[in-house]
């Protein structure tokens, strides 16, 4: 199977650089760390190439990153923006083929990489070079910077080709594992995804090329390096069994309405809310699906939009239920004192409602969803801090307060968080 691999290294940094002030843009020596301020708890989401060369990497605590590069600019991570930017590009790529694998979560290491299955697409889009040119032209308008591109017969081969190509299209010849292994053989063994200890041991054994490693007996490699060594050996031999896992586009059902003139009371909103929930739920019902999260957004004349999210204990597509729930939450919330100019309802987390999985060994699970629905109603009536669940934190902690905690019962099973964007 032919695979086209696209990689935007440091994509979060690229997006920040593209939208930031000019000094940040186009200066490769700029030290930037994305994730938050050094005194905040959190981890590095991304960094500039210059900071990467100084030892900063994804997942590093921000305080540690500050010790490594104290002169760097620390920026807060805007994860929704990064995600949205990549999602737009992925939607464009999905127009070429549905065989598209990508990780849209900026917190994941694979963020900024995309893998397309291009077997048999030449009839639609031309040969591989033509197809690649079209793909690059499309994504150039959507994501900043030029991606690394590689085409090969396996996932690993395509990734290696992208690194070797250094921004230009690099292709591994069409063929079987032997062809792939022949392409990989003269390349540095550092390209193999071995963890540090295994990499050091490979160097101690004097292995510098992938071909040298692939020429070893597989059983001997497994005896020395374990199962992970066997997987590395397979990669070196052009045998990458990892299949492409097509992404599932996130279903977001959204309905919006501009209010002219702006509304100053909540009651007229109820009528609109009901119609919008009705329209969205009809779409869900047509697919035999239900939503697990509902979001209501109200734009007001002065101030920031008011956003209210409601988690649902089980997939639901009942318009009356959603309308009552959202309106009750709205009634219990202190709204901004300004007329509402726009209303939007969004249903997320689409799931099939035909089959529900229940636990085999916990009979309580059969009633958990019903209990969560009841807790939602009770929380609306009495307040979220009245119904609590308990959990253990550290039973050995010196302070009693640190051993366990009580938290709102809906925090993990149904009740939603309210936020103002």
């Amino acid at each position, binding site marked *: 199977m032919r695979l086209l691999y696209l990689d935007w290294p440091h994509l979060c940094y690229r997006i920040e650089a593209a939208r930031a002030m000019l000094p940040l843009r186009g200066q490769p020596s700029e030290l930037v760390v994305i994730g938050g301020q050094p005194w905040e708890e959190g981890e590095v989401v991304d960094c500039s190439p210059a900071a990467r060369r100084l030892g900063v990497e994804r997942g590093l605590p921000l305080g540690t990153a500050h010790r490594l590069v104290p002169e760097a600019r620390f920026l807060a991570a805007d994860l929704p923006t990064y995600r949205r930017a990549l999602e737009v590009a992925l939607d464009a790529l999905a127009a070429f083929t549905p065989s598209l694998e990508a990780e849209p979560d900026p917190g994941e290491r694979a963020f900024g990489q995309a893998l397309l299955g291009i077997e048999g697409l030449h009839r639609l889009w031309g040969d591989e070079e033509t197809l690649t040119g079209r793909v690059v032209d499309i994504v150039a308008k959507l994501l900043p910077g030029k991606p690394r591109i590689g085409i090969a017969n396996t996932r690993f081969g395509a990734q290696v080709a992208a690194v070797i190509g250094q921004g230009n299209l690099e292709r591994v010849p069409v063929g079987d594992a032997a062809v792939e292994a022949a392409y990989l053989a003269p390349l540095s063994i550092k390209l193999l995804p071995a963890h540090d200890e295994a990499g050091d041991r490979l160097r101690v054994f004097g292995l510098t090329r992938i071909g040298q490693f692939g020429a070893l007996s597989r059983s001997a490699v497994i005896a020395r390096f374990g199962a992970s060594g066997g997987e590395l050996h397979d990669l070196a031999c052009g045998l990458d069994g990892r299949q492409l896992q097509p992404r599932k586009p996130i279903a977001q059902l959204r309905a919006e309405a501009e209010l002219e003139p702006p509304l100053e009371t909540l009651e007229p909103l109820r009528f609109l809310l009901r119609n919008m929930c009705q329209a969205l739920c009809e779409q869900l019902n047509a697919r035999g699906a239900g939503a697990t999260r509902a979001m209501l957004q109200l734009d007001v004349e002065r101030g920031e939009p008011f956003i209210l999210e409601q988690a649902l204990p089980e997939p639901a597509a009942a318009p009356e239920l959603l309308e009552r729930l959202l309106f009750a939450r709205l009634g219990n919330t202190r709204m901004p004192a300004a007329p509402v100019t726009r209303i939007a309802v969004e249903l997320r987390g689409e799931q099939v409602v035909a089959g529900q999985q229940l636990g085999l060994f916990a009979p309580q699970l059969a009633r958990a969803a019903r209990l969560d629905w*009841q807790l939602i109603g009770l929380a609306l009536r*009495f307040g979220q801090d*009245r*119904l*609590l669940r308990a959990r*253990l934190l550290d*039973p050995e902690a010196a302070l009693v307060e640190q051993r366990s905690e009580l938290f709102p019962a809906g925090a993990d099973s149904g009740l939603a968080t309210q936020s103002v964007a």
Partner: protein
Amino acid sequence: MPTEPALGTALARLESRWGSAAVRVGVGADQPLVDGALALAPQPAGPAEALVALPDEVIPTGFARLDALLGTGGLPRGVSASFRGARSSGKTTLALHCLAQAQARGGIVAFLDLCRIFDPIEAVARGIDLRWLLVLRPADAEEGWALAAALVAGRQIDLLVIDLPERLNARGHDASLRRLAAHARRSSVRMIVIEPTNLAAPIHGALAESVALRLELEPRGWLRAGRDIVGRYVQVNVAKNRFGLPGRETEIEIRYLVDGEHAAALNRFATADYQETAELQPLRLLHTA
């Protein structure tokens, strides 16, 4: 059965005070006219208890001696009970055991924490699975009654434990307690009230009338292992029992959780069994459509 009005009133008062099993009317010449707690000569427990219609679902208290004493083997469905005793007499521990037993039978339980002293560590160590426990912390007792009544009306919980504070004033709470007990009975939800000894008289009276089972706990002595005190002997007196004979007594051992047992219980909760169950959850399919 024809009875004089005065006798009927007296019987009603006795039943209200001691439970319906306390007063029984004989049907044959060989049986006494009145037996139960008021009989001059105590009847054998077997035949008397056989007359009681036993509910099908019973939650044991976790103490075998006490279960044997209750006649039904524990708390039947829809029954309210009160555990009365001084401080440190083991009434909360007994209630926690009942919660754990209810969970072990697939129930979801709730704890109305009016005293605000609920300790999750202690609960886990007594065998409670925190996933299936709701803790209600109302702003005041009135809100607590409303919250508990709403929760009970939903019929999604199996056992509600109410921890009454000592300084609960009498204003209106007796009526609320009666209503809540009636709610629980109609909804088939078990209810246990942890009752301090110095409770206001109207509330105590309301409890005495509305619950079907009333246990009075009194510490008797220390339970020792060598020179260490590891627990307490507690005398349990069945002051009222609608499903068996009242007035019986037994002694149970309330063991304190020493460090080793504590840690073992927490480890058991935190590691193998708990996680295994959590991981194995999505196995059964229920087709709802």
